[in-house]
């Protein structure tokens, strides 16, 4: 400050006609001391945490409070750390705990799961954001944690868009020329499924009903345990994507008779109804339903089974922009992308956050009927709790930030958006 202003002030000439534009401004000033200052109230400290770490016991009273996820549960639910966004996970590591706020959308979904008639075809709940970064993935994690504690069968796809972005992973399928395999992504999915549901699969003795023929020599007979099947597929990684289809088939067939409640979750499912980054040798783009694993997972969304509950999220993260020459045409058709972004080649979705524009007509047709639930930005109470949580974890280091003035400034800059808040507070 001093450096620059001293540069500006450097005087060369003494005599000069004064500009008196502001000469008449004196009467307009007001006495600042006459403005009544609001005294800062010292409220009785409301709690911002709950000691209840079991999502089955959460009620409306705990709204806006933080609960700590048991580290064993966390490792079981997201063994590869995909279930939560990277930035949030980094912070959790620094805070030495995983604390998630209990919010209205997740409580609503849990309420729905409690009330649902399990004999009907699965109910689909679509979470959509009010704006960028309102914490959909965290809401979804809360629901998944509820399902885990309730001992439901978790069929969980934490980052649905990722498969379609790993172009190097994709290989043509040996059995079907039209299809594309994604071996490593599929084996990760299988491992996640196995780790999530290990206890239930052992307990119910979940065995295959059908025989699967992988090639002329290799096949898996009916009556194999599902964990053995997954173990086989993760060893013979070539058949991993086919095995995802087998798992889906078995789950859909047997969940009813075994009476296991199933929770199917997809994060950013709108990527399944758009283009991908996988490119064929003739430079045309592979559609998502030409990827073996995705096609198998899409069958979970069909209404031809029951004893299941489906929660999906749609968001700007799931919108994939094609990489090859179709990109230009695609951008012309979808006008709401910011092309003049700072990073070359990085485009941000800048359009309306509605179900129609995020999911597209194709996606709506595939998912219908569904219950849309909007995830909104923090309320005043939730903002205060988040702010106090950051202070509690020593995350706000600037001493101004811990005072009332700083709190007001954070509120002003971030407008109660969780992601903006994490970004703003991250460097203070």
């Amino acid at each position, binding site marked *: 400050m001093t450096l620059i202003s001293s540069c500006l002030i450097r005087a060369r000439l003494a005599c000069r006609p004064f500009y008196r534009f*502001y000469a008449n401004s004196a009467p307009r000033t007001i006495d600042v001391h006459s403005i009544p200052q609001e005294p800062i109230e010292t409220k009785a400290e409301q709690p911002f945490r709950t000691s209840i770490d079991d999502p089955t016991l959460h009620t409306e009273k705990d709204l806006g409070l933080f609960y700590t996820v048991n580290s064993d549960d966390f490792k079981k639910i997201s063994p590869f750390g995909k279930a939560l966004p990277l930035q949030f996970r980094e912070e959790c590591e620094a805070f030495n705990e995983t604390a998630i706020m209990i919010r209205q959308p997740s409580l609503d979904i849990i309420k729905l799961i409690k009330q649902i008639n399990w004999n009907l075809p699965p109910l689909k709940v679509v979470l959509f954001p009010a704006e960028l970064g309102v914490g959909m993935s965290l809401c979804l994690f809360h629901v998944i944690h509820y399902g885990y504690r309730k001992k439901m069968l978790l069929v969980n796809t934490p980052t649905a868009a990722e498969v379609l972005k790993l172009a190097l992973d994709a290989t043509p399928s040996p059995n079907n020329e039209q299809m594309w395999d994604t071996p490593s992504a599929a084996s990760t999915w299988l491992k996640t499924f196995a780790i999530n549901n290990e206890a239930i699969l052992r307990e119910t003795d979940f065995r295959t009903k059908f025989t699967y023929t992988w090639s002329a020599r290799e096949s898996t007979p009916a009556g194999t345990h599902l964990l053995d099947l997954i173990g086989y597929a993760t060893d013979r990684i070539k058949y991993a994507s086919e095995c995802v289809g087998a798992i889906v088939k078995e789950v859909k067939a047997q969940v009813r008779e075994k009476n296991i409640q199933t929770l199917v979750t997809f994060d950013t499912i709108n990527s399944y109804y758009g283009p991908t980054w996988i490119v064929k040798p003739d430079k045309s783009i592979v559609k998502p339903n030409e990827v073996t694993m995705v096609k198998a997972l899409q069958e979970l969304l069909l209404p031809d089974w029951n004893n299941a509950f489906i929660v999906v999220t749609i968001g700007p993260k799931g919108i994939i922009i094609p990489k090859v020459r179709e990109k230009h045409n695609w951008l012309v058709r979808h006008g709401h992308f910011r092309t003049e972004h700072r990073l070359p080649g990085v485009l941000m979705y800048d359009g309306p956050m509605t179900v129609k524009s995020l999911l597209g007509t194709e996606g709506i047709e595939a998912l219908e009927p569904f219950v849309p639930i909007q995830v909104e930005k923090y309320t005043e109470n939730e903002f205060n709790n988040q702010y106090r949580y950051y202070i509690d974890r020593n*995350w706000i280091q*600037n001493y101004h930030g811990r005072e009332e003035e700083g709190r007001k400034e954070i509120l002003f800059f971030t407008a109660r958006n969780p992601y903006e808040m994490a970004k703003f507070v991250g460097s203070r």
Partner: protein
Amino acid sequence: MLKSSYLIRYSSFQFKRSFHLTIPSLTAGQTQYHGQKNSTWWDKYDSHVDPVQTRTDLLNMDDLDERHFRPVKPVIPTYQSFSCFHDPIISRVIGILLREGNRELVEELIHKTFRTMKLIQIGKYNRAKTKEERDSIECNPVTLLKQAIKNATPIVRLTRIAKGGTLYSVPIPISPIRATFTAIRLLIDSTHDARPHDQRFWTLFAKEIMDAAQNQGRTIKKKQEIHRNAELNRAYAHFKWQK
């Protein structure tokens, strides 16, 4: 060669008369402004008074204050801010890192640097068992940065003075403004040298700052080298005042 000379592409054979306009250092300091001899554009602010710069200043201002009836200098948002998080040293670092006016980018880099430092230090803090252990950990990134700059600040600099047909490197005292600039410059330079190259700038910068705050690392080495060179050329120090 200045980068900006590439902005307007000439064929190398023809040399235009307006070539000097492509080099900012030749255009910035004009010799006339509004027809006044030997004046530049910032001289119009001679008659202006300093703006209100802090909230307390605003509250303590009385009706007879000069700012009510004299023209006031413009407020530069990046250097003079009402934000309670504003720190001049940070805007100094941003200003030194700045390339082609891309301030948003540099602010992001600095914020990510601070975040990286906080992730490391607060991770340690929250995992610490005893209270003494906790008190020994400095978590505030701005404090760490200030400490690093303080540790990296040299006390002398070398200048070149021609005498008897030879150039001598002469150690002379350094002004505080230039010392701070040199310290930040050293920090940034050692970050550019740092390895591995596939790491992000903010990761390496954070490490460099945290090293320098503990009086270790490449930055401190560079400062010591400046001091060593000054020590070697000590015999010529009197050239500063003896011609």
